[in-house]
């Protein structure tokens, strides 16, 4: 049996009001603003630095020696280097080197849950006593694209280990994957392309629903058996629609729906939601989790919180601490600058 023995989150401090973005494109009147504001990395932050802080939070809650970590996986679609692992930098920074497996995983927005599955498998198979899975993104969106209103920054880290030490047990997990080209970014492109309405029904919804139903059926459970649930959250509407179709209520998903506050953190989104749920869950609460990554696929998990959770919660900042910590970016020019969208040639 495998458990989550530590978790940590990260959301950067800067925020931009989505109205500021809309005004810059002359769309302040007609734009549909999915969220009020979104998180943006500071000039000195990237996926690596954010992953390091989340990993340190996970270590602080686990009280595990960094040297006992046998694997560090970073799931992201915003690697600072196209070639050169982010995970080695994270592993070095937290003191997990050198006897450690490390790699960056990519599967659009589900790279983080993919890392969680691999970490589970490493611990479950006995290949590792502890394995760290991180989902983190400094999400990319083309200036002027509709994605710009939501593409945000943040994510979370989960340290997997023996279930006996767990803050939550892993009951089961499954993946549902097809080749569905709803969203992509080629090697030398700065920003992803997406298939507009194609990203909805045949992509996000089809995969999230099937993976979720598959896991529920295999466990013989219904949504009402769960206290909490979290789904991938590209915007407030999609995540609620998928929850409703499956039969989950607003009360079940509310604490994990971080998108409402900071936007879509891509590979970090469902993991950040899970971290926010662990911030409020009580012993024996059952938690349903389902990610989605374009391309496309979903990873579903079923967790049960343990009594250890409340004892270690205060050892690292809660997701809400990061949400409360905010510093507004005043104008669109400053936003473009900090996002490095202005390129000096």
């Amino acid at each position, binding site marked *: 049996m495998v458990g989550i023995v530590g978790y940590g989150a990260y959301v950067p401090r800067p925020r931009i009001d989505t109205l500021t973005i809309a005004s810059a494109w002359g769309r302040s009147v007609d734009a549909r603003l999915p969220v009020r504001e979104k998180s943006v990395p500071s000039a000195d932050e990237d996926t690596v630095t954010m992953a390091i*802080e989340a990993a340190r939070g996970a270590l602080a809650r686990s009280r595990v020696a960094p040297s006992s970590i046998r694997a560090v996986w970073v799931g992201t679609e915003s690697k600072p280097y196209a070639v050169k692992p982010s995970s080695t930098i994270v592993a070095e920074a937290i*003191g997990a080197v050198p006897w450690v497996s490390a790699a960056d995983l990519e599967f659009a927005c589900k790279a983080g849950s993919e890392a969680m599955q691999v970490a589970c498998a490493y611990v479950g198979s006995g290949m590792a006593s502890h394995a760290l899975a991180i989902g983190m993104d400094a999400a990319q969106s083309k200036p002027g694209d509709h994605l710009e209103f939501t593409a945000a920054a943040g994510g979370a880290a989960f340290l997997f280990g023996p279930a006996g030490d767990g803050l939550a047990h892993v009951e089961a997990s499954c993946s549902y994957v097809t080749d569905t080209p709803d969203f992509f970014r080629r090697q030398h492109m700065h920003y992803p392309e997406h298939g507009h309405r194609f990203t909805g029904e045949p992509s996000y919804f089809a995969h999230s629903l099937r993976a979720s139903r598959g896991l529920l059926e295999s466990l013989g459970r219904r949504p009402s058996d769960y206290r909490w649930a979290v789904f991938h959250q590209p915007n407030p509407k999609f995540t609620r629609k998928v929850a409703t179709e499956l039969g989950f209520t607003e009360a079940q998903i509310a604490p994990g729906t971080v998108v409402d506050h900071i936007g879509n953190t891509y590979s970090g989104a469902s993991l950040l939601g899970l971290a926010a749920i662990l911030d409020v869950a009580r012993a024996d609460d059952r938690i349903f989790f389902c990610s989605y990554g374009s391309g496309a696929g979903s990873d579903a998990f079923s967790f049960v919180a343990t009594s250890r959770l409340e004892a270690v919660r205060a050892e690292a900042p809660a997701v809400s601490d*990061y949400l409360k910590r905010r510093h507004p970016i005043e104008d669109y020019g400053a936003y473009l600058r900090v996002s490095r969208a202005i390129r000096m040639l």
Partner: protein
Amino acid sequence: MELPRYHRLRGPYYRLEGRACPGCSRRFVPPRSVCPTCKSGGLRPFAFCGRATLYSWSHVLQPARGFASMAPYTVGMVRLEEGPLVSAQLADADGVELAVGMPLEMVTRKIRDADEHGYIVYGYKFRPLLMATRPRP
């Protein structure tokens, strides 16, 4: 790109790893080989906890070469909980009213990312304490 140079510095830069003197128990970062107080050799690796207080600071308006993308940025000297003063950048300091003595904590950030073709240097910076009541590790 000076790759070997920064690689050599990863202990202190990424983890705030310094040295401790076995003779007089003074702690150092940057790491030293000989203790200037008691002249002992054989200093051992020592990991600082990262908690500090602000000694003094400056907002840099004329940035150093390679730092234009981060300007204006804030630098300072911080007093580590274990004793030594360290010069470093302050993170998340814009819009914060800084004060001598305010509590800070170490974070690992990009120290330098001059252009899209270059090597990214990561290292310690200090930011205002995120959780005032955060228990010690």
